[in-house]
């Protein structure tokens, strides 16, 4: 305000006639003298102070200290929210704890410790534990032709503790080995499927899980990128700790390839995912640990966890275009199948879904995704904070 008044005085001094002074310098000096009597400390406006407070608040300060948490507690439990606390330690070590609750009343508490980096970050060690109380997960029975009207709900409460070691011998290569002990039980209030049709359900199970993963990732950023690829192969051994008949091996192979066109104005993206489980002789794979399809990232256009079986294959193709540096649009086509026996995979049996999506993102992360997908069972809306692959 004062500036405007001074400006008008000066405007009158410089660009228009003035009478009271005898020189231009005197005329300007008069304006400066007027301002000299009304000086104030230079500093932030109330609006800037507000923004500064917001920036240092847990909402946006990068998660150092207490921070709010938003995300998914578990596939099929709806949107989750909660709080976390991150304590940075020396040499990139950190301690992080989170707790949250989802729209399905599922709950989560998890804690993790990332050890100091070794060998300039080539070796990373992480340990963690979590407790989940998952409500109302869906199970439609096994197979691609399961009847959606037969959906039953179950609660699932795993407790996990474990750790992993990641070696990054080369810039794009990561090899991870890990161990986890998990205990869980599950509960159905009104079972539709007999125990043999829903293995592991209503039982308390304990697993020793060992994992090995090799990944080759040359995307610029895992959480959002427009070029590069990601190839992964994982092997897991799930050993039921008390000798119950639910031990199995799991192999998973994943390929992501993104091909930018016209300097990334367009991106052709492809995703392939295959999960194969092999139960020990006479054993079954528990429902809650079986591969699934359906939901926001795996066969969009179908309900969360719509298809379950021992094996799954998912193929996705996307045509993405970029109207803005913060908005990507995509036309996508998903096709996938679950099968008890991997020899039963047949392209002609694949369920197909297609749709359109808008993804709001930053340079290295996906902030929000809104998609509409259509499958043979209808249209589904997808809201997510993560990119589909």
């Amino acid at each position, binding site marked *: *305000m*004062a*500036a*405007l*008044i*001074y*400006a*008008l*005085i*000066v*405007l*009158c001094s*410089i*660009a*228009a*006639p*003035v*009478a009271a*002074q005898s*020189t*231009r*310098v005197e*005329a*300007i*000096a008069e*304006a*400066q*003298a007027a*301002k*000299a009597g009304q*000086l*104030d*400390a*230079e*500093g*932030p*406006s*109330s*609006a*800037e102070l507000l*923004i*500064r407070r917001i*920036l240092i608040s847990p909402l946006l300060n990068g998660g150092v200290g207490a921070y709010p948490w938003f995300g998914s507690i578990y596939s099929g439990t709806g949107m989750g929210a909660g709080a976390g606390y991150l304590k*940075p*330690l020396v*040499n*990139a070590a*950190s301690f992080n704890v989170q707790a949250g609750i989802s729209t399905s009343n599922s709950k989560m508490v998890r804690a993790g410790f990332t050890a100091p980096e070794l060998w300039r970050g080539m070796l990373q060690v992480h340990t963690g534990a979590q407790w989940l109380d998952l409500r109302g997960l869906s199970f439609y029975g096994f197979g691609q032709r399961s009847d959606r009207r037969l959906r039953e709900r179950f609660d699932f409460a795993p407790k996990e503790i474990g750790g992993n070691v990641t070696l990054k011998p080369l810039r794009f290569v990561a090899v991870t080995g890990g161990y986890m002990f998990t205990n869980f039980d599950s509960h159905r209030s009104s079972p539709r499927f007999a125990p043999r049709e829903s293995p592991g359900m209503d039982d308390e199970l304990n697993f020793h899980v060992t994992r090995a993963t090799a990944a080759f990732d040359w995307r610029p950023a895992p959480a959002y990128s427009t070029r590069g690829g990601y190839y992964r192969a994982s092997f897991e051994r799930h050993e039921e700790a008390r000798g119950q008949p639910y031990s199995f091996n799991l192999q998973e192979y994943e390929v992501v390839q993104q091909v930018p066109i*016209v*300097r*990334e*104005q*367009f991106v052709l993206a492809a995703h392939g995912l295959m999960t194969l489980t092999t139960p020990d002789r006479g054993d079954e794979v528990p429902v809650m640990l079986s591969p699934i399809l359906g939901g926001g990232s795996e066969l969009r256009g179908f309900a969360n966890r719509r298809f379950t079986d021992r094996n799954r294959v998912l193929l996705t193709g996307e045509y993405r*275009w*970029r*109207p*803005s*540096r913060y*908005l990507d*649009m995509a036309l996508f086509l998903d096709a996938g199948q679950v099968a008890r026996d991997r020899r039963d995979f047949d392209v002609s049996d694949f369920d197909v879904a297609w749709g359109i999506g808008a993804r709001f993102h930053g340079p290295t992360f996906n902030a929000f995704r809104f998609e509409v997908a259509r499958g043979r069972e209808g249209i589904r809306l997808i809201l997510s904070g993560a990119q589909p692959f």
Partner: protein
Amino acid sequence: MKGTWGAGLGAWAVTAVIVVSSLTLSGQTRRFFPDDPIWTEPMTRDVKDARRYEPDLTYQTLENLFWRPGDRQTGQRAQNINTVDEVPDGPYFVNRAGRMPLTPALVARASNTSDGPAPGKWTVVSAKSDGVTPGFTIRDSANQLWFIKFDPPGWRGMATGSEIVAAKLFWAAGYHTAEYHIAKLVPSNLVIGKDTRITPPGEMARSMNQSDVSWLLSRADRDADGSYRVILSKAAPGRPVGRIKFSGTRSDDPNDVVPHEHRRELRGYFVFAAWLNHVDAKGINSLSTLINENGRSFIRNYLLDFGSALGSAAVGPREGWEGYEGLVENRGEILKRTLSLGFAVPVWRTQDYFESPAIGRLPRDHSKWNPEAWQAHITNSAFRHMRADDTFWAATKLAAISEDMIRAAVAEGQFGDAASEAFLAKAIIDRRLRILQTFLPKVNPIVDPVMDRNGRLSFRNAASDAAVADRAPGYRALWYTFDNNGDKATLVATTEETQSPMVMPPMPASEYIKVDLSAIGGPEAWTRPVSAYFRRNSTGWTLVGFERQP
């Protein structure tokens, strides 16, 4: 800053001042003082208590993107110009190009007053650990403070060279810039100060140690012999008190009485930033310091940090969109691209680029570049208030920076790649030409009117002199006697000539005369007259006023 939110409250007061001013001016005031035109901005008051204020970058960005601070009424004439439509030397700007005899050697030296840091060890007093590329603040053996920046790995010369070239050319244009040197850093020459602390990403602040230096250096481009090419900028004189604001005035500076969005040199900064693709032309890349000189204290404002200029984006080569789009794209453009399934492809995605580690990435061809469409990351208030006479003013400065001066500045970048250096110089020269072609003919380009004792009025046409427009077929002059005390002009005669000079017709005795000069033919803008005011003196006539656009 407080005024940002008080505009509504102050409307009545502003109105009152306007009314009072109007009453004061009506009928009995004079347009010109004896000391007009002034060429130095008066700073008549000591700045006694200027506290350092570092604006928040996020706030500044949001403010300029969504709230648009400063005067709401655009289209106003710049308010810090003197009566001949020029910017006096002052806290932001010194008339160099076009007013002092610049030479390539002068441009190459620019603001440098030394040969660089004093010989001996460099003591690290702080380090930049949050950015992608590292930076150090050091003291040399003479206790002089310097800031060190590096090139990102794989781009030797790009950021450091681009910064030095841009700094030299901004200096030539007239802005205050720091002293810059390219140097070679040998890590063993760095000594960590005993009180030096660092806050590594994700860690707590602690004392800096040698492994921190090694870690920071690991993110910089390293030469085969283990040394690093660096750019050193000398700490600007005076005590830092903040950054340049592009709207309003500093509350603590009594000399700062013109809202910055109405300062011509800050509006014209757009043209120079466009020229050098200085997309990061924001307040945080500047510095205001409190200077004590000859017993007076005043604030001077420097442009700094040109690492994101020309083909460099500091941490890598310039991204294609930079210069073509702001930080947030135009909404209509987003909608068009969305609905077209992406087939409304922006030009920057399809044009050909020159790319090299030495200079980064630049469009290969600038012959069709449109400087009016150029965009900084953030369009500040001064840029928003820019008018055609402001861009013309900047273009005339640019016209005075010769191709040899540009080559001399580019040579100071020491890029070490002759082909890239030649391309960069050509790109800057070509962009300069496009600016002259765009902004000089856009208004009536008559400049430098001079009337000799015999009443011969000569002038130049800046556009045709720069060979960016044809000569006007002729010129028309409307001759007035001018009553300075009453600010009233009386038309006496009209004359026409095919070229300068024009001869003053018989005029009644008058201390002042006014001449409205326009082109006969040529672009439509040239037919709108400029007004020149002359005052009679003992030897003839002196130009005291010039108005290109009301």
